[in-house]
């Protein structure tokens, strides 16, 4: 992908400013329809998922107490991996988005929820909900574009360290939750700028340290110790479950914004952005994953990344419901609804990471020298 303003053919040039505002109103109408219906069924759904997840987690951990027996190891590890994935994706991510705040249940609320993840919920909410969801795919603003360690857009400057990015990406995938914790801390930037002694940063660092300690103690000390003679096998099991969860969530999240067909935006293009233009950026900056109902649940419905980015605070199971209406809008407004099966989207994202580890081949168009264009705001001209 290239910043949309630099593309030879601008995919939104055919839309007038009025078109974009009308599009925004149509999306608002979809949102209003869901809000009018939101209620008991959404509450029942999340409670059911939570109950299922907790039952699965505890029974898997119980089975793992006997992980010395290979069948118990396999069943327990698989169950724990699924439980952790459900907890992070369909439950944690979505509750922390405030999708269920409407229930006014203090037990299921974005301000009180803590998740099975080394990044403390409040730090993640800041970097994810406030920064990534506001500045989606804006180069220099949205750190999700390569997480500050990779180059995932032609318009990001190439440095020699990018040569290693396929390896960085793989390591990040294996230890994704730690990558996210470092990312939420803006660890690299804070260290580079010598802010590691700032009291605010140190307080956040301590919070992460406490969270890591609790998570490690649970998975790698207490649970194995409780397993007695199965100590080592349980240790291997919890490590494997965490690894599976990390690889899975990393893959799903790469599919959200990296596959081909997804657009990026320059910093200046979002100045004075209207509601309609914000919606349009979310539509073009996200990609879906097609698949079965099970896949959607296991991705926390981030397989409906486009719908999620349009309406981050609607209950996730509603995304599937409104997807046909959203897709119809794409068709009517002549926009590309980027979607594909999981293997294809993962391969596409990985190919981009590999391809952009090398400098751009065509250097005739130095990106930084071009005057900033206000494509979104002036697309009607």
């Amino acid at each position: 992908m290239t910043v949309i303003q630099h593309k030879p053919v601008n995919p939104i040039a055919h839309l007038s400013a009025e078109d974009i505002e009308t599009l925004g109103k149509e999306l608002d109408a979809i949102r209003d329809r869901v809000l009018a219906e939101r209620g008991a069924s959404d509450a029942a759904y999340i409670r059911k998922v939570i109950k299922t997840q907790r039952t699965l987690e505890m029974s898997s951990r119980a089975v793992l107490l006997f992980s010395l027996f290979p069948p118990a190891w396999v069943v327990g590890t698989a169950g724990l991996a699924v439980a952790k994935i459900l907890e992070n994706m369909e439950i944690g991510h979505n509750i922390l988005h405030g999708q269920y705040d409407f229930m006014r249940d203090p037990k299921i609320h974005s301000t009180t929820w803590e998740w099975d993840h080394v990044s403390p919920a409040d730090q993640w909410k800041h970097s994810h909900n406030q920064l990534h969801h506001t500045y989606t795919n804006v180069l220099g603003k949205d750190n999700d574009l390569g997480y500050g360690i990779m180059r995932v857009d032609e318009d990001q400057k190439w440095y020699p360290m990018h040569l290693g990015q396929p390896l960085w990406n793989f390591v990040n995938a294996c230890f994704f939750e730690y990558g996210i914790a470092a990312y939420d801390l803006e660890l690299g930037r804070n260290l580079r700028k010598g802010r590691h002694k700032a009291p605010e940063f140190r307080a956040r660092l301590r919070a992460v340290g406490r969270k890591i300690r609790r998570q490690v103690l649970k998975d790698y000390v207490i649970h194995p110790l409780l397993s007695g003679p199965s100590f080592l096998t349980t240790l291997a099991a919890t490590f494997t479950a965490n690894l599976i969860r990390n690889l899975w969530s990393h893959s799903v999240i790469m599919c959200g914004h990296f596959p081909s067909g997804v657009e990026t935006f320059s910093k200046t293009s979002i100045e004075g952005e209207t509601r309609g233009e914000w919606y349009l950026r979310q539509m073009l900056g996200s990609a879906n994953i097609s698949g079965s109902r099970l896949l959607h649940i296991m991705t926390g419905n981030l397989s409906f990344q486009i719908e999620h980015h349009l309406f981050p605070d609607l209950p996730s199971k509603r995304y599937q419901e409104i997807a046909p209406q959203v897709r119809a809008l794409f068709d009517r407004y002549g926009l590309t609804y980027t979607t594909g099966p999981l293997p294809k989207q993962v391969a596409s994202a990985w190919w981009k990471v590999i391809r952009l580890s090398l400098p751009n081949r065509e250097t005739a168009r130095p990106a930084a020298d071009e005057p900033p264009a206000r494509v979104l705001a002036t697309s009607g001209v």
Partner: protein
Amino acid sequence: MTTTVPHPAAKTTVRDRLLRLAETVTTPLLPEDYLDLVAPLRAGAALRGRIVAVEPETRDAATLTIRPGRDWRGHTPGQYVRLGVDVDGVRQWRAYSLTSAPDRPDRLISVTVKAIPDGRVSNHLVRRTRVGTVVQLDQALGDFVLPDPVPARVLFLTAGSGITPVMGMLRAGVHTRADVVVVHSAPTPDDVVFGAHLRALAAQGGIRLVERHTDRDGLLGVAELATLVPDHLDRQTWACGPVGLLDAAEQHWTAAGVADRLHTERFRPTVIAPGEGGSVTFTRTGLTLAADGGTPILDAGEAAGALMPSGCRMGICYGCVLPLRQGAVRDLRTGELTTAVPGDGVLIQTCVSAAAGTCDIDL
């Protein structure tokens, strides 16, 4: 004097250690999050109750019988309980008078709910509650109770669902210890909640019952009490019902110089003086909203998505109290202005307070 270390302390330590060990396994959740799945009414859990029966009383009122959690501490007749019910997936808290006798051998409690027009919660409870539903509870509260010993002569002046706290007192046998008159208003004989029970009690001579059917005879004027209950000013009176009745009663008893013999329970706040509104900031949540002078801060905050503590929503239970760090609010019932400067930490009832200027609230 003894210096022996009490045995329970040592026990607590072991329990605490076990609890802490359990927490290391369940983190980031708490052991209770798992226990709640199987035993929501256990001792030590947040107080809840399970609805075990729903029985209609009139065409728009029903009695809910509830098995409270193990930590329920009981109640005094006349008190109310705050009930947290999920209506259309949204937790709503309301206060209802307890209508059961205290110390029932089966430990069950009951509330009697009258569906009010457009009342989300009351209509849900009366018409759509299913047996088996778990509701959130709070311990019984309220000072609309009889003193001990009970005065020799008592008048209950009630209307509509105002009979409910009185029913709790009657079931506890107040009429066996005092001379009781009940003056109750309802639109028709069929609308009298507990009508059959009250009439039976009157027929047995337990109480003197004066029913007023307002569809036919019009609203009761307090002046009529002079003929209906000639000695009413000599009695200790407990009044519960609509605002109009209570206001009139307060004037009447005050004019007679015996205001201390009247005890009232108000079901809904009287809106007297709306404030002028202002911007409200929830400092810990980081949420700022514009609130008008007629909307309780509780409603404005909930509409903006804040997780507000709430209770009766009528200014009696203090379940919604939050510290006002600075700013001004106006009490919607009295028009009274409350101001706070940093450091004061004035506690305000958000359900009956509207912004009267810029406010910072500690939430």
